[in-house]
Structures are given as structure tokens and as C-alpha cells.
């Protein structure tokens, strides 16, 4: 063995020397880099003291090792390992072995034997633990090989009796990660060790060291994750661990109990100290509930979280979690919630509380009161009142999950959730509002509960208010007073925070359409109509009045009797609002009026939608235009583009599709126009004009292709090819134009080469799509490639020109869903005439509030651009936290933009707009740069391709009036 080892070393050594030699002769500039293993060997031999050796090893660890030399390095390290007396150096070597075996592409089975051998004679516990860790790494790389796993598990079992906790820890970890999961395998290798891994691990549940106990439980959980069915017998053991002294043990034990309760929910376990038996899941639920009042908050969080996912628990137990069984002086007391409910049902509401109102009533049998062993009793009450907000959030989440699966529980937990709206930490408040929204299908709010909910509308935090609006959108209210109350509070909210306008209107829209019958009796009061007298016409621009109208009109949609109650001006206002706020006001069937849009009969499915058909027909028409004369082509394209654009405006759901195709056709149109033969045949002096037109066209096509690629969500690779193809054509056009306008050949060389490279990379990226592109520009180009590479630039240009002209128009297939990214700046509104004054040189913060739709990864791509009148532009990257995600595909940007400028003599307008940043690398099929496996040694790799970065403006610019004043001296 040793001889073999030595031989290997020398082999490497000699090889290396040769390489150095070669290197030197071939490229002089390059610094020679001797092979890793040899250098290491030399270094380690040089090392005089353990500290030296350690230094060398540390340095060595900073550099990556190539796959080919890993084995050699490992051998060297092992050799030194046997020689080394110092434990710390051995430890480092052991850890290096683990790191090395992680190297991608290296199969560590060849070093496994050696690694196991090293374990035999090792005395130091730390090194042992590290070696076991290395074995774990090796084992995880060789998971497919059952015999290797068996062997490692055996090794681990042998070391389980070690006196050091670290070693036992690692052994258990190893068994957990590699222990046999399938029953069959265990039988096959019965001769070796028919070991029941679960039993081995289970034995260590009672280890004297808490760390080992934790590791044992974790190993058990690991086995479960890997698919082993844990035995039910463990349950009682795990229950004992819940009373452990150490929090990490308890925390892991809670997890284990949860796992078991999911595995054997229906089996029956006895209740100690009585003859009764209950389902295991109920028992486990009770136990975990108990842990919600544990001494350590880590355990409490864990327990509260897990409670949420125990849906099989019986409702009897579930409801206990909300019942704390109040008492006072041994007499049963009703909770405030119960009292509120009673007050409500007795019809007496909002009465002032009297002294002794909450006086306890009935006597309690002292024997029946269970103070602590009551299991599930009041677990959530405790959890929601916990000191740490982490626990409270976890409890709210758990409530949410349980309530979603049980309507009766949802009804019961409502009071508690409503209470959480007053928590001192905003996150908790927000979370509970969201939770309430999620379970709102199951519940109807009582009036007193609604009252508490609405009180939160005055919260100064915008997030809270908006979450609450969302909640109100989907709540059920039981009475007309409730609706009235909600409206009054929302209007109050509107006057206090006018910026909430949109959100409140939307909220009222849903409130109206959900409760038409409750709104009906309120209409005269809300519109302040009088049976005999005409009342003054309200101000049409008053947001509060609009809010009321939104509520009524939405209710009227499903309540045909309502319009009879409207007065004349209401109808006028309806017409106005239907036009200006069409997203909030539904079409109504009003007496004496035609409906504005024809009712869409439900029998027509969207697939056969006439507008969709129209879209496809017009596209078909365009694709058959190959045989028309140039003039005809242009006209047809122009008409189709116009049609599509109009269609997009009319049918919002088709807008993305229509715009996308219209842009594509537009590109084609520009290309055709630019290539018109007349232009190219004119005499040299007229080149200028022709040049301007063609190069502008090329530029615009490029821009449009970027828009097509990055502004639409749902673009598939089929479309990407075509977009790139179009871009390639634009580049060819650019090349032709430059070739014709510049004198001399020198600059053309570079351009040609670059273009050919791009063709090449196009081919590489989209090789699979090429068969679909017969007769296209690129198809022809690739046929001519051998010729192009060898010919002169002028010839290349000539070839390109003819190919461009002859190439066919590619069919653009449409994806299922296509949405255009849009942005709408809500604030600043751009209506203000008062300039924002600030001292020059200082900054002023401008609040920007915008909604984004169909933007993927807005945190990375959306920027704010500020354009000053002097042409200076500034791009601001909003913080990731400024983006909120209120719904799928929708984002909200609320941020502050800092403005500054030197002094102006008079106020002027600046423009604020949103940009969508793109990077042409991002979408390419090219794989991401592989991460180096060697830790902490990754030097920043240079960007492999220099992608084109740019921005697309995708919102309407908003003008803001500002005035930097000169600083006063």
C-alpha cells in the first residue's frame, strides 16, 4: 500500500515537472502553477512544527482543486495524516478530506476504505468526529450504493459507544442520513448486520448528553424524511422527551411527536392515570398544545407552528384550545367574548359597563377544575398572549390554517383574531388581518365584531388600512346596520387619509355587490333623497360621494328594483362614472336606456370569443401575404396593425396578445420599408436621406424587439427565437447601412466579424428551433456561412442584402397567455400647481406610489427615472422592501425618491417615470455560471458574455412641479 502510494506521488511529481516545462516553452507570460498535490506534499514535508503545517493546510484550502488531482491530493493528505502527531493538524486534514470529496465530478468511493481505516487508530475525539463527518460527506455522495451505506452505518454503530458527545452526535447523524430505509435491503445484508436502525437511534433518546439526545431525535426525523416509516412505539419515548431539561431536545421532540401524529393519527393510546383511551392525534395535539406554554420561546414557536398543520384532530379538542375556563373566586366567569355575544343577542348593544357587570355567576366544583394538565385547554389563548411576537405570529398562522379546514372553529376563533387587531406589533396586526381575510368565506361578522374591525381603519399605517380594505372586500356582513357602519367608517377613513381613495372605492365595490339586499333599504338615506322635496345635487367630484355611488351602483347590478329610487342627477352621475371609473362601476340595466355594451351571453366560452377569432383571422391574412406586391404588403400590414391596436384597447384580456403581435408586425413593416429597392438604387448624394430612414428603422426594430422580449410575461422560447431573429435582421440592416455610408474597409472588418459571431451564437442558442425556420433569413444565412466567413466585407454586405430581401416572413405563434407589463403611477398625480419648494443643494423626498401589473421580479427590474428640465436624468433603484405583493401578478411600489438640484429662478416641471431594466443575458437559454464547490475560495468570475443592458420606459411620465430655492445666506 505504502509503496503504491509513494509511486503515485512520484508519478505526479514527474508529470508536474514536465508540465511546467511545457508551459514555459509554450506561453512565456503565464505563471507556472505546479500541481496541487505535489506542492502540498513539499509544503507539508517542509513544515517543522504543527502550527506550520496547519498554516500550509489553511492556505491550501483557499484554492480550488481540479477534479483530476483530487485523488492524488487525498493520498498525500492521508499519508501525512498517519505521520502526524498533532491532533489539530489531523483534524484539519480530516476536514479537508471531507471538502475534497465534495468536489463535483469526483467519486469518493476510492478513498472510502482509507477514511474508514483512519478511524481505527484515532484517539482524539475531535478528530474522530471530524472523520465521521467526512464519511458522512462521502456517504451522501454515494447514496445509490447500498453496500457502502451499510458499511458506513456499521462503522457509525461501532463508534456509538464513544465517550465523547461529538462523536456520538456524528454517528447518529450518519445513521440518520444513511441508515437503510427500505425493508428489503435490510434483509439482504442480514448476514452483516440485521440492525434495526430505529432501535439503535431510539436507545440514544436517553443519552446523558442533551446534544446527543437532540442528534438522536434529528436522526430519527431524517430517517422519516428519507421515507422510513417510523414505528409507533417511539411515541411514548418521544413524549417523555417533552419534559427534557434542554430546549433543543424539547424542540426536536415536539417535531417528532408531530411526525408520529401524522403517521398514526387513528391509532389509540391510553391516557395515563385513567382507563380511557384516545386517538393518537388528539393525544399528540394535547401534548403539543401543552408546549405552547413552555419556558423557552423557541419551543413555543415550534409548537404553535406545528399546531396549525394538525388538521385531523377532533373538533372537540380543537375548540378547547380557545377555552381557558375562566373563574374568579372559584366561580365560573364568562369571558368578555361571551358577554359581548350575549349583549348582542339580547339586542342591547353598546351599553356602558357597570361595576360588577363581569361578576362571576355559578359556583364551580373545585374538583373539576383542572389548572394545568388540561392539555389543549386554552393553548391558543396563551399563544396569542405570549410575550414574544414570534410566538404570537406563529399562533395566528396556526389559527388560520386550522380555521380554513374547520368552519365551526373559524367561527369560534373570530373573536380572538379580532382581538389581535390591537396587538402592539404591526406585523402581528397585519398577519391577523390577512388571516381573517383568508378564512372570511367561512364566517359572517357580527355587528360588534365589525365594530372592532372597523376601528382599525384609523390606523396610521397604510399597510394595515389596505389589508383591512382587502378584508372588507370579502367579508360577509349580517345586517344593514353593519353595512351602514362600514360605509360610515370608510368615509371617515377617506377624510382622514385621502390617499386611500382607490382602495376604499374598490372595497365599496365589493361590499356593494356582495350585499345588494342590505344596501337596498339604505339607498334613500345614502342618496339623501326625499319623497317630496328635491335635494341639492351633490358635488360630483367629491370622493366621498363617489364612494357612496360606487356602493349603490354595484348593489344595483343584482337588484333591479334599486334604480327606481334614484333621482335624475344620479342617472347623470352614473353615466359619467361609468365612463370615467369603468373598472368600479358595472353596466346597469337602466329603465329607458340602452345598455352600453351588449350583454355577453354566458354560452359563449372565451375560446370561441369573436374577438379572439378576429385576432387569429387577421394574423392568418397577414401570413399569406408573401405573394402580394410590396405596396399591397405595406398597406395590409398597416391596416392589420391598426386593427390590432384598436382590439387591444377594446378587449382588455386580449390586450397583451394584440399589442405583442402588433409590435411584431410593426417591426416587419419597418423592415420592408427600409429594404425598398427604390431607395437603395438612388445615387450617392441621396444616400443621406435613405441612410437616415433605414438606420432609424433598424434602431426602432431593435428597441421594439427588446420590448417584446422583456415587457411581456408568458413569452415562451418559440417566441423568443422569432424575436431574436427579428433582431438579427435589424442588425444586418444596420451593417448594410453602415457599409454603404462609410468609406474605407477597415471599420467594416470588425463589424462583419461581430455580426458573424452573433449569427453563430444565435445558432448555438436556438439550435433546436432551427428546423422550424425554413426559408427564413437565418436559415439562408447559415447555408451561406462557409462563404461568408471567407469573403471580404463588401461581399458579405452584398450577400446580406440579397438574403434579407429574399427571406420569408416568419409566422409568429402565439402563447396561451400573454400579458404586457404595465405600470401606473398613482402618486404624484401631476395635477398640483403648487411647486415643491426646497433649498438647492439639499434633498427633498417625493413619495411615489405606483401599481405594477404582470412584472416578473419587480425588485430586480423596476427603476424610477427622474428627468430634470436640463436633460439631466437620474435613475433610482427602489429598495426591495418598497414592493408589496397584493395579489398574483400585481405589485405595488411605494417608495420615496430623493430630488436635488441647483437653484432655479422659477419653478419648473420634472418628469417621473418607471423603467423596466433588462439584461439580454438574463433570458438566454445559457446556463447560469456554475458555482464553485470549493468554499470561500470563489474569486469573482468575469462576466462570460457582455450582455446588453438597457431600460424600457413602461409607464406614463408624470410631471412634478418643483422649485429649488437658492440657499439664504
Amino acid at each position, binding site marked *: 500500500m505504502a509503496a503504491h502510494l509513494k509511486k503515485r506521488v512520484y508519478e505526479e511529481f514527474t508529470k508536474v515537472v514536465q508540465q511546467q516545462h511545457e508551459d514555459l516553452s509554450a506561453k512565456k507570460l503565464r505563471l507556472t502553477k505546479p500541481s496541487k498535490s505535489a506542492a502540498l506534499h513539499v509544503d507539508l514535508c517542509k513544515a517543522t512544527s504543527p502550527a506550520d503545517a496547519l498554516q500550509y493546510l489553511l492556505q491550501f484550502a483557499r484554492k480550488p482543486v481540479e477534479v483530476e488531482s483530487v485523488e492524488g491530493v487525498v493520498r498525500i493528505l492521508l499519508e501525512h495524516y498517519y505521520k502526524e502527531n498533532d491532533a489539530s493538524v489531523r483534524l484539519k486534514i480530516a476536514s479537508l478530506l471531507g471538502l475534497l470529496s465534495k468536489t463535483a465530478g469526483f467519486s469518493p468511493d476510492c478513498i472510502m476504505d482509507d477514511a474508514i481505516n483512519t478511524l481505527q487508530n484515532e484517539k482524539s475525539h475531535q478528530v474522530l468526529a471530524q472523520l465521521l463527518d467526512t464519511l458522512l460527506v462521502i456517504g451522501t455522495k454515494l447514496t445509490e450504493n447500498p453496500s457502502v451505506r451499510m458499511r458506513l452505518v456499521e462503522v457509525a454503530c461501532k463508534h456509538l*459507544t464513544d*465517550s465523547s458527545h461529538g462523536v456520538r452526535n456524528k454517528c447518529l447523524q450518519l445513521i440518520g442520513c444513511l441508515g437503510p430505509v427500505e425493508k428489503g435491503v435490510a434483509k439482504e445484508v442480514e448476514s452483516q448486520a440485521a440492525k434495526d436502525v430505529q432501535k439503535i437511534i431510539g436507545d440514544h433518546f*436517553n*443519552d*446523558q448528553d442533551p446534544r446527543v439526545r437532540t442528534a438522536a431525535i434529528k436522526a430519527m426525523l431524517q430517517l422519516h424524511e428519507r421515507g422510513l416509516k417510523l414505528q409507533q412505539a417511539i411515541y411514548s419515548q418521544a413524549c417523555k422527551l417533552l419534559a427534557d*431539561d434542554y430546549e433543543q431536545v424539547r424542540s426536536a421532540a415536539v417535531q417528532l411527536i408531530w411526525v408520529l401524529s401524522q403517521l398514526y393519527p387513528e391509532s389509540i393510546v391510553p391516557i395515563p392515570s385513567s382507563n380511557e383511551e384516545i386517538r393518537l392525534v388528539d393525544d399528540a395535539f394535547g401534548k403539543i398544545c401543552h408546549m405552547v*406554554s413552555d*419556558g423557552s420561546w423557541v419551543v413555543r414557536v415550534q409548537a404553535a407552528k406545528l399546531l396549525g398543520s394538525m388538521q385531523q384532530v377532533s373538533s372537540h379538542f380543537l375548540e378547547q384550545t380557545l377555552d*381557558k*375556563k*375562566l*373563574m*374568579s*373566586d*372559584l366561580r365560573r*366567569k364568562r*369571558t*368578555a*367574548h361571551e358577554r359581548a355575544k350575549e349583549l348582542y343577542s339580547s339586542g342591547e348593544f353598546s351599553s*356602558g*359597563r*357597570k*361595576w360588577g357587570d363581569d361578576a362571576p355567576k355559578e359556583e364551580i366544583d*373545585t374538583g373539576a*377544575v383542572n*389548572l*394545568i*394538565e388540561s392539555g389543549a385547554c*386554552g393553548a391558543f*389563548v396563551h399563544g*396569542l*398572549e*405570549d*410575550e*414574544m*411576537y414570534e410566538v404570537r405570529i406563529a399562533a395566528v398562522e396556526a389559527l388560520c390554517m386550522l380555521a380554513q379546514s374547520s368552519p365551526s372553529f373559524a367561527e369560534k376563533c373570530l373573536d*380572538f383574531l379580532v*382581538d*389581535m387587531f*390591537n*396587538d*402592539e*406589533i404591526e406585523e402581528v396586526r397585519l398577519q391577523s388581518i390577512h388571516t381573517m381575510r383568508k378564512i372570511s368565506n367561512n364566517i359572517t361578522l357580527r355587528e360588534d365584531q365589525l365594530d*372592532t374591525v372597523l*376601528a382599525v381603519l*384609523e*390606523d*396610521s*399605517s397604510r399597510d394595515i388600512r389596505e389589508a383591512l380594505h382587502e378584508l372588507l372586500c370579502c367579508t360577509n356582513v349580517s345586517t344593514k346596520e353593519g353595512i351602514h357602519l362600514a360605509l360610515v367608517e370608510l368615509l371617515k377613513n377617506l377624510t*382622514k387619509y385621502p390617499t386611500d381613495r382607490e382602495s376604499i372605492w374598490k372595497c365599496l365595490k365589493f361590499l356593494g355587490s356582495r350585499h345588494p339586499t342590505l344596501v337596498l333599504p339604505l339607498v334613500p338615506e345614502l342618496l339623501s333623497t326625499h319623497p317630496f322635496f328635491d335635494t341639492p345635487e351633490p358635488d360630483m367630484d367629491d370622493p366621498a360621494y363617489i364612494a357612496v355611488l360606487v356602493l349603490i351602483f354595484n348593489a344595483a347590478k343584482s337588484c333591479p328594483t334599486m334604480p327606481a329610487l334614484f333621482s335624475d342627477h344620479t342617472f347623470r352621475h352614473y353615466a359619467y362614472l361609468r365612463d370615467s371609473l369603468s373598472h368600479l362601476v358595472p353596466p346597469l340595466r337602466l329603465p329607458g336606456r340602452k345598455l352600453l355594451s351588449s350583454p355577453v351571453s354566458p354560452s359563449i366560452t372565451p375560446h370561441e370569443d369573436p374577438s379572439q377569432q378576429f385576432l387569429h383571422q387577421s394574423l392568418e391574412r397577414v401570413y399569406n401575404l408573401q405573394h402580394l406586391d410590396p405596396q399591397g404588403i405595406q398597406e395590409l400590414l398597416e391596416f392589420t396593425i391598426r386593427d390590432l391596436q384598436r382590439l387591444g384597447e377594446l378587449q382588455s384580456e386580449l390586450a397583451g396578445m394584440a399589442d405583442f403581435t402588433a409590435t411584431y408586425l410593426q417591426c416587419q413593416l419597418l423592415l420592408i420599408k427600409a429594404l425598398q429597392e427604390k431607395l437603395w438604387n438612388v445615387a450617392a448624394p441621396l444616400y443621406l436621406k435613405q441612410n437616415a430612414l433605414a438606420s432609424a428603422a433598424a434602431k426602432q426594430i431593435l428597441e421594439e424587439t427588446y420590448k417584446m422580449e422583456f415587457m411581456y410575461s408568458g413569452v415562451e422560447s418559440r417566441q423568443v427565437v422569432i424575436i431574436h431573429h427579428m433582431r438579427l435582421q435589424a442588425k444586418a440592416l444596420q451593417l448594410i447601412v453602415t457599409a454603404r455610408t462609410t468609406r474605407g474597409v477597415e471599420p467594416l472588418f470588425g463589424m462583419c466579424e461581430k455580426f458573424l459571431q452573433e449569427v453563430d451564437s444565435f445558432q448555438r442558442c436556438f439550435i433546436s428551433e432551427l428546423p422550424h425556420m425554413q426559408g427564413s433569413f437565418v436559415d439562408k444565412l447559415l447555408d451561406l456561412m462557409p462563404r461568408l466567413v471567407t469573403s471580404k466585407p463588401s461581399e458579405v454586405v452584398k450577400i446580406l442584402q440579397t438574403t434579407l430581401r429574399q427571406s420569408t416572413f416568419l409566422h409568429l405563434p402565439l402563447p396561451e397567455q400573454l400579458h404586457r407589463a404595465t405600470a401606473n403611477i398613482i402618486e404624484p398625480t401631476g395635477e398640483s400647481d403648487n411647486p415643491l419648494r426646497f433649498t438647492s443643494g439639499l434633498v427633498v423626498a417625493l413619495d411615489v406610489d405606483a401599481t405594477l401589473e404582470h412584472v416578473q421580479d419587480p425588485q430586480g427590474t423596476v427603476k424610477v427615472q427622474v428627468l430634470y428640465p436640463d436633460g439631466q436624468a437620474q435613475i433610482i433603484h427602489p429598495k426591495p422592501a418598497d414592493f408589496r405583493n397584493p395579489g398574483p401578478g400585481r405589485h405595488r411600489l411605494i417608495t420615496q425618491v430623493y430630488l436635488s438640484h441647483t437653484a432655479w429662478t422659477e419653478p419648473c416641471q420634472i418628469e417621473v417615470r418607471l423603467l423596466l431594466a433588462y439584461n439580454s443575458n438574463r433570458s438566454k437559454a445559457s446556463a447560469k455560471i456554475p458555482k464553485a464547490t470549493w468554499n470561500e475560495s470563489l474569486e469573482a468570475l468575469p462576466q462570460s458574455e457582455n450582455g446588453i443592458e438597457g431600460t424600457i420606459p413602461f409607464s406614463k411620465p408624470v410631471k412634478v412641479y418643483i422649485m429649488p430655492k437658492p440657499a439664504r445666506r
Partner: protein
Amino acid sequence: LLVCLCSGPGAGQDVGRSCILVSIAGKNVMLDCGMHMGYNDDRRFPDFSYITQNGRLTDFLDCVIISHFHLDHCGALPYFSEMVGYDGPIYMTHPTKAICPILLEDYRKITVDKKGETNFFTSQMIKDCMKKVVAVHLHQTVQVDEELEIKAYYAGHVLGAAMFQIKVGCESVVYTGDYNMTPDRHLGAAWIDKCRPDLLISESTYATTIRDSKRCRERDFLKKVHETVERGGKVLIPVFALGRAQELCILLETFWERMNLKAPIYFSTGLTEKANHYYKLFITWTNQKIRKTFVQRNMFEFKHIKAFDRAFADNPGPMVVFATPGMLHAGQSLQIFRKWAGNEKNMVIMPGYCVQGTVGHKILSGQRKLEMEGRQILEVKMQVEYMSFSAHADAKGIMQLIRQAEPRNVLLVHGEAKKMEFLKQKIEQEFHVSCYMPANGETTTIFTNPSIPVDISLGLLKRETAIGLLPDAKKPKLMHGTLIMKDNSFRLVSPEQALKELGLAEHQLRFTCRVHIQDPRKEHETVLRVYNHLKGVLKDYSVQHLPDGSITVESILIQATAHSEDQGTKVLLVSWTYQDEELGSFLTSLLKKGLPQGAS
């Protein structure tokens, strides 16, 4: 050994005047030194003569521990240390040390300056007393002397309230003082580790109550204040200067902040301002929210709450006023009450319990016409509300603490006897620990089962653990060694070392036994037969046949001689040392059964 606890001069089954004396392993510790609010004579202070009839207190007591700054826990301290005379150390937490003198001074002023009492402690005495105080940090182990150590745990209740663990050797007592297991707006919940004391002395104010969630109470309170303020009414909240007042301030302050309200909130000045200052300083003693946000803003630096001036009471428009004292019996709160009582738009909220006879009690019990001094009749039109904000642990909380600490005995103090009885029963039932509830002046003796630590030499430990199975934490393990008791210390060493240390020669104890065997053959043949037999039976032991004709099994020697009278009987001499007793006796019994016939 025993821990002797003497529920001392005060406390026991009574609220107010907490004072407990504990004797633990020869050390005497006094826990709290409170006064009774209800008395104005000698009974207000604990009877310190109870502690020691003759001799100085300083000689008898090892230390005094004060759990928090409420007067029923620290009110008698200057009297005790300066007037009765005690010079030993007094321990309390930093906030308690800071706030305690303010309250004592205030109390002194009321008794001496207002009521004109003499023979009371002076300002100087308070100062001198505070000089004897040693401040401790949370979880800091303080060595009072070589054996006695104390450690403070967080108790909630009021700022700086602590539970104390008192430990002598391996015996320990935990005294909870007043504590709260549910967090509130400015303080966290009490917490203790699994310290498994021999005795837990717990307060039991709410022994028979399980409280509702505090959230409902808070919400009700806020809603009422908010509604009144929106109506344009004025809200009066009579409070005591410290404790609940701060919680209510924080509650209102955050609510004002959240809801963007503009109505002014006032706090009547005086000692509160000083106290608020300390609240600002001791942020680490407050709850999670305040601790987390104090970098941006110290929650006790109120934005909306301003100092009150007498003239403000007549200002028009809504306002909220916190005024002392809490029971509306005198002072500023009563003045304001008289001004505002006539308007039904206004409201008074009583946040705590009111003693009978005070205006607070009267209006809470529904009286609408009050007779003031000078035969004036005051008609109360304003709304009267009661809100209980108490910071004691309820029955569930007490049980929770017991579960956390896992004591071997529980002792209940600071509560009513009837209520304690219920809790005692519960504790015994649930935890199977004995529970005591001594009356005032009664002594309870608790026997402990102390474990005695013994030093063991590493070599011996390793040798002994190497034998036998894995070490198991839950099972006792048998060890062989020599116990040396010398100079009050215990050591377990190997016998050889013990001999060496004590300078003793080793004595060997050998047992010899003769076994008669009927065997007519020659001696050496008999030996051979015995050898073969033993070899066959004792497979795991080394059985050797020595050249001198004897057999050894491990260290046991067997020799055979012919019987002097009867040659047919052989005498087997078996000799073994004391250590091999087990094997030796096994061998003799084996040999006594005789040799198998067939073997040769």
C-alpha cells in the same frame, strides 16, 4: 439535614406587610420587609422582635432580600435597618434600588408632614439605609458569603421586580415576590429555569382566579377612551404613580400614535416624573416591543403625554388626564373629578381596586349623589367605568411557574387562606409535591433530602466507567472505591491511593476452605482430574496447572493433599482473597458437589 422555614413577622396568609424569614442550612435570610397600608400604629411594620429576642439583628441575619419597590414589600426597610438596627447587606435589583427611595420618601412625607406623626424614619435614614443596599443584575449569581449565594430572575409585575433563588450548598429556596406570568404593554412575563429548588415560596394573590385574555380589557379601555374623546368629552383616569400608570400611558401613547389622534393627554406631575425617568433608563427590564424599538425611540419619552397643570382642567375640548391618587380619596384626582363630574360627556375610568369609604368605591358601587365636605352635594353625571389591570399571576400562572421550576415543596404566602386552600389542593394533586400555607408567625419545617457532592479522582472514574455498560443518566451506578472524609470534604479515591495517603499498609484478607473429596487415586492424578473438571466448567476463566502441583483459577489457589488418616480422601485446599469472594465461593460449592465420575 433540613431547611427550616419560619414564616416570619409578616406575610403568611395576608396581603400586605410581606416579611418572611428563611433558615436554610444554618443561614438566615429575610425576604422582603414590607409595611401594611391599613394600619397607622405599630402594626404597620413587622414585629422584628420576633426574629431575635436578644442580640443584634446583624449577627442573626446573613442578608435581606427585597423583591420589588412596592411599599408592602419594602416600606419597613429604613425602620428595620436604621431604627431597629441592621448593618448587614440588603440585596435588590438596580431599578428597585433607584425607585425605592422615591417611594419611601413620598410615604414619609405623607405620614410625617401631612399627618404629623412623630417617631418615624427621616429622610437621612432612608439615605443611610440605601447605602447598605447591594444592587444585583438578572441571572447574576451573588456570593453573600462562602456558602450562601443568591440569584435574581425576571418577575414582570413592576419594573425591576425579581424572583430570588437562595442557595446554600445543594439546598435552595426560590422566593417569587409578586410576579406576573402574562406580559403587558411595558413588561414581559416572569421566567425561571428548571432550577428544581427544595422549596418554592410563591405569592398567591389570585389563587382562585383564571383571568380572561388581557386583549379584551385593553380593547375595551381604548374604545371607551376613544369614543369619549371623539364626542368631545374629558377622561379622568385616577392612578397610583407607579406600575399600572406606566402601562396605561404606554397603551394610550401607542394608540394615539397608531390612530393619529390629536387630543392631549396629561399626566399629573410629582413623583411620576422622577419615576418615568428611571423607566427610560431601565429599558432592558421592559418587554420585547419596547426593547426592540428603543433604538428609534424610547417608548417612555412620550410624544402625546404632557405634564399636567391645574389650569388645564378648565380648558375646553377633549382631553385625557392621569391623576393621582388612584382611589379618588384626596389630592389632584379628586379635584379634577369634582370639576368634571357634572357633565355626562365626561368619563372616569377606575383602573384598580378601591377601598371602602373612598369616593372611588362609592361611585363604582353606583352612587350618583355624593356628599362632599362642607355638606355640598355633588351630582355625578359623568360615566363611571371600571377596568381591572392587575399584574399578579393567576392560578394558571402560578401553576405554570411551578411547572417551570419543578420544586420539591411549595409554600404559599401573600393571599387569603380560603383561596390558598384550593390552590394547595390543586398543586398537591397535579405535581405530587407537598404544599404548605403557614399563617402569620407560624413556622414551617421542611425536610430535604440533600445530595452530597463527592470528588472522585479521574483515574478511578475512567476505570469504573470502562467496566460495564454505557453510562446512563437515569440509572444509579455502582462504583468501588474508598471514601475519604477529611476537613469537611468528601473524596472518592481508589483503595491503593487511599492507603498511600493515609500511610497504611495493605492488609490482605484471605479465605481458605477445605473440601473433602473421595478419591482413591494419587494426589497428582486427583489434581489433574480437578484441573480438567474446572477447565471444562469455567471456560471463560484462565485455569492453570502449575508445576508445583497446584491449580490457579485467576488468582484463586487450589492445592490437594491426601488426608492424613484416610488415604482415599483427598483434601482440597481452596484459598482466595476478599476481592474474589464471588468466584471463590462459587468454586467451593462447585467442588463440594464432587467430581464427575466418568472424567479422568
